[in-house]
């Protein structure tokens, strides 16, 4: 293991952990399996987010828009034509289309990447607070459009009938792909150049780095991964509702990224794990736990409150996230076994 470069040790170790989690999960009750699957899909999204935000240091609020775009495209390509005919008003070609999931996913991801490229061309010229605000505007625009373009998205009605093929192993596969892509990008000189600009835009520009171009590259890759997450999320839920892909999901994914540590892959994974566990814990409490005698029950909505509080506590006590910019490598394991832990 020590002969593999450090940058690749991290994703491989993380994937190994994910596989272990999936193995354990697949032995559990169906409800738990669904929870793990959902967490894996969100992990894919958060890793996608990390590719841009972690490397560039620039905040993006618009990534969930790409989840929506990916999800809607895949939905249109996979829902039964008869259902589409009833619910939507699509051009004949799209209405008749019924593609296998993988093909629809690839098309959706490619389309999202292309859209991201076209959007990033003007966006990456923006500096300072303007860029995050522009991504916010993107989120709102996509939301308003998906809420009102009834012919294509079903508008306020949920789009139903998506084949639900996202199970625990699909989730692991997606997360693994995301991790490998993130690691690969990180090792290229583009990733390195972008991280330089994260520390100081001025210094990076002075060394000849085209900051706008590097951000564009990261943004497109990031959007593609996030779109993949969106497709899988859609096929996990089986429905597409515009409201799902707006502020709440933006908050949850950003929280996952920041809680774990914005600057490392391990951080992204840690963040997803912590947030998922806390959410699941409180969801269980909301349903009511039997404590030999009396039932501990909490009012619905406690889960979100707990999540926000956990986030605030982490921010107050460990502002760089749980993990900071530490990455999991083999030496961390090796040292532990040497000390007999």
């Amino acid at each position: 293991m020590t002969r593999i470069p450090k940058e690749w040790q991290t994703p491989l170790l993380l994937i190994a952990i994910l596989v272990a989690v999936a193995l354990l999960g697949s032995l559990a009750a169906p409800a738990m399996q669904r929870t793990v699957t959902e967490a894996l899909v969100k992990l894919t999204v958060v890793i996608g987010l990390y590719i841009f935000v972690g490397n560039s240091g620039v905040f993006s609020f618009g990534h969930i828009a790409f989840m929506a775009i990916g999800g809607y495209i895949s939905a249109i390509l996979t829902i039964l034509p008869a259902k589409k005919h009833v619910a939507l008003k699509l051009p004949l070609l799209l209405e008749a289309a019924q593609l296998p999931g993988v093909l629809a996913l690839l098309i959706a991801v490619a389309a999202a990447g292309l859209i991201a490229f076209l959007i990033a061309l003007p966006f990456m010229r923006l500096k300072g607070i303007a860029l995050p605000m522009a991504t916010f505007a993107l989120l709102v625009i996509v939301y308003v459009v998906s809420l009102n373009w009834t012919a294509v998205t079903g508008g306020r009605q949920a789009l139903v009938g998506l084949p639900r093929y996202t199970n625990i192993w699909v989730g692991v596969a997606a997360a693994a792909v995301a991790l490998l892509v993130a690691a690969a990008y990180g090792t290229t000189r583009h990733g390195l150049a972008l991280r330089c600009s994260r520390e100081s835009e001025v210094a990076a520009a002075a060394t000849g780095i085209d900051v706008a171009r590097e951000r564009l590259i990261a943004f497109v890759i990031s959007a593609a991964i996030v779109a993949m997450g969106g497709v899988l999320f859609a096929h996990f839920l089986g429905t597409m509702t515009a409201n799902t892909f707006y502020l709440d999901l933006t908050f949850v994914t950003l929280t996952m990224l920041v809680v774990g540590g914005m600057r490392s892959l391990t951080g992204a994974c840690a963040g997803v794990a912590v947030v998922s566990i806390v959410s699941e814990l409180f969801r269980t409490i909301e349903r009511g736990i039997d404590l030999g005698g009396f039932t501990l029950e909490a009012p619905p909505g406690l889960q979100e409150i707990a999540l926000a509080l956990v986030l605030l506590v982490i921010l107050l006590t460990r502002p760089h996230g749980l993990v900071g910019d530490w990455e999991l490598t083999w030496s961390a394991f090796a040292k532990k076994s040497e000390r007999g832990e």
Partner: protein
Amino acid sequence: MIALQNAIDAISLGAVYALAALGIGLIFSIMRLINFAHGELIMLGGFTLYALAGQPYLVMGLAAIIVVAIAALGMERVAFRPLRRANPATLLIASFAVSYLVQHIVLLVFGSRPMGVDFLAQLGQSIEFGGLRVPGLQLAAIIITLVLLTALALFFRHAPTGVQMRAAAEDFTMARLVGVRANRVIAAAFAISGVLASFVSLFLVAQTGSVSYKMGISMVLIAFVASVIGGMGSLIGAALGGFLVGLVSVSLQAYLPVDLRPYRDAFVFLAFIAFLLWRPQGIMFRRADRERV
């Protein structure tokens, strides 16, 4: 005549947006913090009105102002003061977390359905003005906003705390080095921000007659847009930005073809992106504000 009517619509809407934008801009100019939770301050104002429904309007209004100012101070003390030295990303997420937290607490207590509140309902009546029919509320919004803006301007020019705030907004560390008390100035800024938010809630509730736990969100998004357009860090800019967004919003509503009307907000944000590309630093940006090498 219709154009004039639209103009008054635009100005009164712009006035409310300007107040919201000022609340955000004030905090940003001093602390470089974008307070997402500002929308929840507006929402808390609304729910204070709901909680006191049936009382004399003056009592309802004053209570809203006081409650929101206290909430703003509380927010600062508990969530933002410990994070004062943190990086902007952390501050941003923290304010997002506070926003999410407050929304869901209110959701827990009051439920998700919008609830009706009678506040200044009679202002819905129109007043005749040489051929024009102007709803009293719009007139009130314009007049009160002008009063508040004037009061603020006087405060910043003449009150010691106001001058200290201007200094802190320009160079926070240097302000401390001449003896300006950081905690006091920031607390004052949050209190003022809260008062501004409470007035926004008064107008919103009077206009729509209802409150819901999500009522702050769309207002705060517009407020960001307005502050950024005006140039974050400039208070005059925030006010101008608010009026500009009000103008664009009303114009779109009036002049967009009917089937595109539901997409009005998307067009507003599209116009926002276009503005950012043309002038990313905002209207009032000064050359000296750019990052120094």
